[in-house]
């Protein structure tokens, strides 16, 4: 039985969608993801759609649902790696995917999630030029 793998990296979950999503696969993914967030206590979800050639209204709504469900479970969702053609199609269809955070690639997605968590944790990630004031640097 096909499943989209959900990988745990630190306190984040990474989902890389490589095949066209059937309706069944999409709802399976929604369930799996909700389960995994609760099981691992993850604070962020990264959905990589680099492999998707087509994003229709169904997949668009699935992404929005995942984002909402995750937020209820205290995890932020970032969709990364959308192809230009996909973005153009979505815009032409009038699907702006409101409420979904996006980033260019997985790296930037991780950085974005860290930035989102940083104010709560109080300690910004030190490895890249984050927006927080580099107060202690001398």
């Amino acid at each position, binding site marked *: 039985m096909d499943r989209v793998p959900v990988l745990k990296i630190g306190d984040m979950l990474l989902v890389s969608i490589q095949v066209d999503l059937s309706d069944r696969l999409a709802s399976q993914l929604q369930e799996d993801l909700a389960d995994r967030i609760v099981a691992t206590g993850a604070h962020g979800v990264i959905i990589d759609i680099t492999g998707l050639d087509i994003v229709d209204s169904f997949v668009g709504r699935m992404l929005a649902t995942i984002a909402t469900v995750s937020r209820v479970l205290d995890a932020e969702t*970032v969709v990364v790696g959308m192809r*230009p053609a996909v*973005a*153009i199609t979505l*815009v032409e269809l009038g699907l*702006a995917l409101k409420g979904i955070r*996006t*980033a*260019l690639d997985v790296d*930037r997605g991780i950085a974005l999630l860290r930035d989102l968590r940083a104010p709560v944790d109080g300690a910004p990630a030190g490895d890249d030029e984050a927006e927080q004031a580099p107060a202690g640097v001398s």
Partner: protein
Amino acid sequence: MDDKTGKRLASLLAEHRDPVLEAWATTVRETLRGRLARAELSRQLEEIYGALQSALEGGAVAADDPAAAELRDVLAELSRNRARQGFSATETAISVFGLKDALLAVLPTKDSQVLADYARFSLMVDKLGLFTFETYVSARDAIITEQSAQLLELSTPVVKLWDGVVAVPLIGTLDSVRSQLVMERLLQALVETGSPFAILDITGVPAVDTQVAQHLLKTVVAAQLMGARCIVSGIRPQIAQTIVSLGIEFDEIVTKANLADALQYALREIGLEVGGGRRRPAAVEG
């Protein structure tokens, strides 16, 4: 189809060379209305005349004869030049057809053999005229295709301003074809350079109506979907007035008055501080 016809015509042309050329040049000059220098026109016509003469001597009595290859080359070059110089199709065709009248004027019309030869000659010139016309049209087509491609190239450069910031300076009216191209190029550039910031500079866009605004909004939303942020800069006072009076919602888009402000904003968002002219540049931290 005997090549004697060609030979006889060639000797006729040789015999009446000067008066025929003179009459031909006059006819053509009238239609061109002095837009081509007299000397140059004469040179062109002499070249055609010479090529025609040698084609006839070689036995060519039809325009597509192998012996007329040189003649066709000369004519093709003439019509290509005329197309580039902006002459009309009629003016170009008359440059060839004029030869018939010019030759008829000097022929001994009593001679039936000569008349029969002239009929063949006339047929050949007609073919040559059509050939010229076709070359003219294809030259025009090539020019038009070339120019529209150049225009599109010219209009949509995506430039990298800084590490992580790309910009598109838009110049001229935005129609749906162009804005589609701009959108594709910009999104592609975002992927290739991995830039989280894009600046759309509309300083060169003469007017913004609802359609143009719609295109801009689409581009901005598409960039956001891919995870980049879009800044619109270069909005002139009149355009700002138009946007407001048309009731176009630009709420969610960051807009800046000029490209410099937009770049500064993007750099600041990335986490780089640039000392502006208005403030004293602070010492670089750390």
